[in-house]
């Protein structure tokens, strides 16, 4: 008989251990089905959260073989195919405190979420009497971000949060800031965006884990680009992240390619670069890895590229 072997990381508030459960394989079942079966038929002490079973409540996120999934939406057969095994390791979502077994603590995250004021700050035009009307087009801008079910899968997979002290905002929090900043009924988008800038917006490492794993397909990394662009429009250009982005933008306009030698100076300034990067540059020159005198020449067709820049500026107006 084919069997599932689940190795579940357990925690009772003081002790941690890994417990193994075995039960017959069944086709076309979800991850949540299996956890429920264990609790109902094998071990009632196993703790996990779930409610709607329809990818709505967001409570059944769990990590399997190191990757985060929404339990009720994920077919076990898909996981077996991915890892080519019926032996699976279950852990609670990462980057959360664990309460028991697979149950995580959302309280600190909710406190952090409030930083971006995740509520409507109404415009002057709207009122209780007149209502807060929105056109279909206006609504379509927030349709996708409002799909977030606060499941925490993005947080669990976030490459920056894995190494961060806890200041960096979880991708779902960035999504909330974006959602209210773009809402036509909201009159104060800066109030949602400023806290994003103040809390390490530029530390996103572009690992693409959030956008890859979000069970609702929310384009989280596009939102980050939008948030960054907006902070620069608000005038916040004098920071490492903005200077770094502009270094690329300017170099392509000037010659078509990046000037790697100048990049640290443009991003960090001369003083910091001399203090910090000279030993690295020396290592590189010594190994023949870089030639400090190499300056990229203008690429063939640079005039065309500058025309594209001009055109893009007209378009964005």
């Amino acid at each position: 008989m084919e069997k599932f072997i689940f190795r579940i990381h357990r925690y009772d508030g003081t002790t941690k251990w890994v417990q193994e459960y075995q039960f017959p394989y069944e086709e076309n079942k979800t991850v949540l089905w299996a956890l429920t079966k264990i609790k109902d038929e094998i071990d009632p002490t196993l703790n996990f959260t779930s409610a709607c079973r329809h990818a709505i409540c967001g409570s059944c996120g769990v990590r399997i073989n190191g990757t985060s999934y929404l339990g009720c939406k994920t077919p076990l057969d898909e996981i077996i195919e991915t890892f080519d095994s019926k032996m699976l390791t279950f852990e609670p979502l990462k980057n959360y405190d664990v309460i028991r077994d697979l149950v995580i603590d959302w309280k600190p995250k909710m406190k952090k979420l409030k930083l971006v004021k995740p509520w409507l700050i109404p415009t002057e035009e709207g009122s209780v009497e007149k209502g807060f009307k929105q056109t279909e087009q206006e609504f379509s801008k927030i349709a996708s971000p409002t799909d977030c079910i606060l499941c925490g899968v993005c947080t669990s997979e976030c490459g920056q949060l894995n190494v961060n002290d806890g200041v960096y905002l979880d991708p779902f929090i960035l999504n909330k800031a974006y959602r209210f900043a773009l809402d036509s009924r909201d009159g104060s988008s800066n109030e949602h965006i400023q806290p994003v800038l103040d809390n390490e917006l530029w530390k996103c490492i572009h690992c693409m884990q959030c956008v890859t794993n979000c069970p609702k397909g929310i384009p989280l990394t596009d939102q980050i680009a939008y948030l960054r662009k907006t902070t620069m429009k608000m005038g916040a250009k004098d920071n490492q992240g903005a200077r770094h982005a502009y270094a690329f933008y300017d170099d392509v306009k000037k010659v078509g390619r990046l000037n790697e030698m100048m990049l640290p100076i443009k991003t960090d300034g001369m003083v910091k670069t001399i203090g910090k990067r000279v030993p690295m540059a020396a290592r590189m020159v010594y190994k023949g890895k870089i030639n400090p005198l190499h300056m990229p020449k203008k690429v063939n067709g640079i005039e065309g590229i500058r025309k594209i820049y001009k055109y893009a500026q007209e378009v964005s107006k």
Partner: protein
Amino acid sequence: MRYGFFPGCTLESAAGELMISTKKVASALGIELIELDGWTCCGASHIQDVDEFLATSVNARNLALAEKLDAPLMTVCNTCTLMLRTTKKDLDEDPELKKKVNKGLRESGLEYKGTSEVTHLLWALIQDYGIENLKKLVKKPLTGLKVANFYGCHIVRPPQIMGFENHRNPRSMEMIAEALGAECVDFDQRLACCGFHAVFPAEKEVLKLTATNCISSKMAGADCMVTPCPLCQMQLDMYQPDAQKGYSADIEIPILHLPQLIGLALGYSPEELAINRHIVNAVPKLKESLGV
């Protein structure tokens, strides 16, 4: 086999050794790489933060250059691949956007049509060249060399754009390394991020990541890490001495570019593949394991 070759900025400066080894390997395999005339930076995941439409337009231009050659576009960089594929997908799925972008290209006599696919050397070797054909050319099997394959994010994620293989458990790097006779180790950070794109604003975190990536592969018993991305290579190699400063455990491990690993098996010496240029010296380990 013939490709429009998109080297990307790093191959012209800090990853010159990847240019050298890519050209050696391509010529040994009989793959024709025609460098696109007038290619520009792909934006490296930064230009869209300033102007998304511009980022799309610049890459539409790069794609149009490959179309002029009537060849698929090939890169050896994960991020270049992702940037170019993102643009291609956006343009192919949105005729309005395509029209708007083409208006900007027309002034320089170019047009994006959508006829050239975007691929990476790693994929092309498997999909177009064939593992069996690669195996036939192995002169010096890498027997005894234990490699940790560090994929890098942008060769697998997001799958809607990359889609070559299962992003949660890809096998392409292992397929190649094994075809060359090397032994692959499994390690926790196999699909992790190198952090390169935020090494300036998030230096502390990214160096921690570098150390974690190195230690994880070392603990799994690897002699070296291998990556299909020059940005991962730079982060893991160039910044390794800085990452080491934060830890007492020895994190040192050499980092090879994928074409360098292939080149070794095709019989080139480490010097011919410019392996001696890396900050963490890979040559002693290679001598010890392979006797090269």
